[in-house]
C-alpha cells in the first residue's frame, strides 16, 4: 500500500508532540513518527530536518549534542517553554479543525 504524505502544516505539530515526552534526535523523531502513524506516513528527512532547524531558530526547540544509547554522538532536540506553548495552541487548533472537518464530512 502506498504510504501517505504528511498533510501540509501538521509536521511541526507532530514533531512537537513527539518531543514533548522526551528529547530526541532527528533519526529518533523519524522512527517514532513512522511507528506512531502505524507506518502510514512517509517521513521525508528532506522536510523533517528543515522543520527541526526552523523550530530551533524560532526558539521552540533547543538542540544539544549528547551520546545515544549506542554511544554515538547525536543532536538531541528538546522542547522549550515557548515550544510547549506553541504545541498547546496548535493542538487546540487542530482539535477544532478535525472536529469541524469530521462534522462536515458526516453531515454531507
Amino acid at each position, binding site marked *: 500500500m502506498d504510504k501517505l504524505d504528511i498533510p501540509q502544516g501538521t509536521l511541526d505539530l507532530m514533531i512537537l508532540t513527539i518531543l514533548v515526552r522526551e528529547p530526541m534526535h532527528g533519526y529518533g523523531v523519524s522512527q517514532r513518527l513512522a511507528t506512531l502513524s502505524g507506518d502510514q506516513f512517509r517521513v521525508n528527512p528532506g522536510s523533517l530536518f528543515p522543520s527541526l*532547524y526552523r523550530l530551533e*531558530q524560532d526558539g521552540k526547540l533547543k538542540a544539544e549534542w549528547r551520546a545515544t544509547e*549506542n554511544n554515538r554522538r547525536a543532536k538531541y532536540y528538546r522542547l522549550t517553554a515557548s515550544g510547549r506553548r506553541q504545541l498547546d495552541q496548535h493542538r487546540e487548533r487542530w482539535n477544532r479543525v478535525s472536529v469541524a472537518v469530521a462534522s462536515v464530512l458526516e453531515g454531507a
Partner: protein
Amino acid sequence: MTLWHRLVSIVRWIFRRNRAERDLNDELEAFVDMAAADETRDGATPAEARRRAVLQLGGLEQTKECVRGARHGAWLDVAGRDVRYGLRQVRRNPAFSAIAVATFALGIGGLAAIFSAFDAVLIRPLPYTDAERLVMIWDAMGQTDITARHNSTPAELLEWRRLNSVFTDLASTQPGDATLSGGREPERVPARKVTWTFWSVLGVGPMLGRVFTENEDNNGARVILISHGLWQRRFGGASDVIGREISLNDEPYEVIGIMPQRFYFMPSREIDIWMPASFPPSMRTNFTWHDAEIVARLKPGVTLDQARQSMEALSLQLTAKDSRGPHSVVIIPLREEIAGRTRTALILLLSASAALLLIACVNLTNLLLSRGIARSREVAVRAALGASRGRLVAQFLVESLVLAALGTVAGLTLAVPAMRFLERLVPEAMGAVRLTLDWRVLAFSTAAAIGAAVTFALAPALRGSRVAPLEGLRDGGRSIAGPRSHWFQQSLIVVETALAVVLLTCGGLLLQTFQHLRNTDVGFRTEKLLTFETQLFRYKDFDRRVAFINSELDAVRAISGVVNAGAISRIPFTNLADATFYWLEGQPRTEIPKQVALMRNVSRDYFATVGATLQEGRFFNAADQASTLPLAIINEPFATRHFGSRSPLGQRFKFGSTGEKGHWYTIVGVVKPIREAGVLEKMKPAVYRLHEHCDQIGTLETGIVVRTAVEPASIVPAVRQAIWSLDKDQPLARIRTMEEIVDRQLSTPTQSTELLGAFALLALVLASLGIYGVLSYAVTQRTNEIGVRMALGATSNQVLLSFGKRGIAVALVGLAIGIVLAGIASRLMQTLLYGFRPDYITTVIAVSAIVIAVAALACLVPARRASRIDPMIAVRQE
C-alpha cells in the same frame, strides 16, 4: 517570532556559518549511521546498509540544501551567489563594464561633489542657536539709486528694539577696523562694533571668558572679544590672554573673551575683534547714519511674512518725520543673506549634476537593454532549467547593482579632488569649509546611487528576463527586439538629448555673462597695480592726516620699480560704503533725500596712477592746494543724472549732512565711470574730492594704489619699509594687487561657468554616445533586413539615409523639448546673469547647431556601416 530573534539567527548564521555547516554534516552523518545500524540489524551488509540509509535520507546533499534553504539567512547566500555571478559578468565583458562603470562614476562623482558644497552652504546648521529664526533687516530706500537696500541706522535699531512686536531681540554690527600695536609689528585687523544684544540674539557665547554687558556697551567700556584665529596667531593661544590689556587704535583695551573657532558672522569670516558698539549720543537719534547691519531673532510662532508686514509698518511710521521722507525695510533670512548668489549657483549646479546622472542612467539603460537582448539565449537556457522570472529579474538587478557599486566607488574617488575646487565656491560671509566625504555626503550619494541603479536597471531586468524559453532557444541566439523596444530606447535618447540641450544652453548663457563680466570696462587699467590700506586715526588732526598721506605717497614713489602712486579713501571694487546725500546749487532742499552719491577722497595724481579716462574738464593738478577753492570731479552717471547734455563744469554742490555751513564744491571734471562698487554691481553716481579739501567729512583710513613697472608683489617689502620709516606703528592692511581683487570678485561666476560648462560638455558626450549606441545596435540587429532590402535593389545611399534620418529625427525631438526646458531654466537662473542680458536666441541657435552636428556624427558611423553591408553575407547569416 520576533524580529530580534530573526536578526540574531541571521547574524549567528553569518558568523558561525562554518560551525553550522559542520553541525549539519555531523547530524546527517549520525542519521545515516543510526539508520545503517538498523538496516544491519535487519541483516544487510554494511555497504548495502549505508546505501539504503542514504537513500532513506533522500540524498545527503539534497537534504543539506533543503536545510540551508530553511535558514533565516538563506537569501544572503542567494544574493552572494548573484553578486559573484555579477562580478564574473563584469570580468567577462571588460569593455562593456568599463564604459558602464565610467559613465556611472561621472554621474555619481559630480553629484557627490556638488552635494558636499550644497550641504555645507545651504543645509548644514549655521553656528548659531536655532539659526533658521535669524533674519537680517535692511532699510529699503527705494528713492535713492545707490542700492535698493541700505544699511540701517543705530537710531532705528534703538527704536525697533523698543517698539517691535515680532522679534525676541535685535542687534546691530558696524564696521570698525582696528589696529593692533605694541610689542610685535603693527597689524590691522577687521573688527566689528556690536551691541551687547549681539550674543543673545545669535545665541552664542565665547569659548573662554565672557561677553560685555549692557552697562559696558552704554558706557563705552574698552573691552573686546577676539577671534580664535587672532588668539592663536598673535597670542600663541595663551590662556592668560583673558584680562590682558592690549593696544587697539592706540588705546588700551581689555580682552574679556575668545570666540569659538567655528564662529563667524556677516559680512566676512575674517572678523578678528568684536567691540562694544557704544553708540555716541549723536548717533542715537540721527536717522541718517546708515552703517549698521541689523540681525534679529523672530519670536517663536512669528512667520517671516508677519515680521515683514509688522516691520514695514513700524518703519514707515518711525521715519514719517524724517527729513528724507518715510522708508520701509527689507527682511531677509540670515541663511539667504550669507549664501547670496552662491545659493542660485549651487541650486543650478546640483540640478545640472542630477541631470548628468540622469543622462548617465539613460545611457546605462540603453546599454543594458541592448545587452539583455543579446543575452536572450542565455536567459532562455536558465529559464528552461527552472529559474523563475523573479530569480532572473533579481539576478539582472544584482548584476547592475554590482556595476553601480563599482561606479559609485570610482565616482566618490573622483569627487574628492573636485571638492578642493568647490571649496572656493563657499561664500566669504561664511566660515571656511573643508569639504570631505563625510557621512552626510556618503549617505546622500549612496541613496542617489541606489535610486539611480534601480532606475537604470529595472527596465532592462524586466525586459531581459521576459523570455519564452522555447522561442529564445529556437531563435538560435538571434535577437527578438520588437518595435516596442525601439520605441522605448528612442524615447530614452529623446530624454538625454533634451537634458543635454538644457545644460548646454544654460552653460552658454553663463559663459556669455562671464565673458561680459570679464570684458567689463572697469574705467582704469587693472594690471600692475598694487593696493593696500593705511590708517589715519593715529594723526589727531586733519592737517597731520593730509601730511601723512602726502609723505607716504612720496616715500612709495621713491621705491625703484614704482611708476606712480596715489591715494583714495576706498580702493575701487571693494565696497559700497561712504555714500552721502548732496544737493546742487539752485536745487530745493527737498531734493536731498533722493540724491545719494558715492564719495571718494583722492590725492592729486590718483587718476593718473590708475589710468582713468577724462571725459570732460580736467583732473586735479598741482595748482589745486588746500588753500584754494574746494573742487570736485564727478563721474559720468552723476553728470547724466543732473545735467543731461549740458556741461556740468563750473556747477557747485554741497553735501546734505554738512548743512548750510558746508563747503560748496565746484565741478571741474567728468571722469569715465570707475567701478567703485564692484564689477558685478551697477554703476553708481560718484564724486571725487581732493583729500586736502575733505576737512568737513573725512575718513579715517586711506587706500594707496601703486602703479609699478615690475611685478607688483615684488615691491611689497620695500613698500612696508618705506611706510614704517615714516611711522613704525602704522600697519599695512589688505595688501593685494588689483587683479587679485577682480579675480576674487569674479570667483562665483568663474566657477559656476566652469563647472556648468564641464557638465554640459559631459552631457553632450554622453548623449552622443547614447545616440551612437542605440543606432549602431539597431544596425546590428537589422543586418539581415538590410541585406534583404539591398538584395531587392535598395542602394547603399538609401540605406544610409534611412538610418541617418531616424537618428536625426530622434535628436530633433530631444532638441525641441530641450529648448523649451532651457527657456524655463534660464528664467530661474536670472540672478547669475548679474543684470546682463545674454543673447538667448544666438545661444539656442549655437546649441542646436552643435547638437545636430554631434547627433549627425553619432548617426553617421552606424549608418555607414549599415550601407556597406554585403547583401550576400547578410542574408547568409540567417
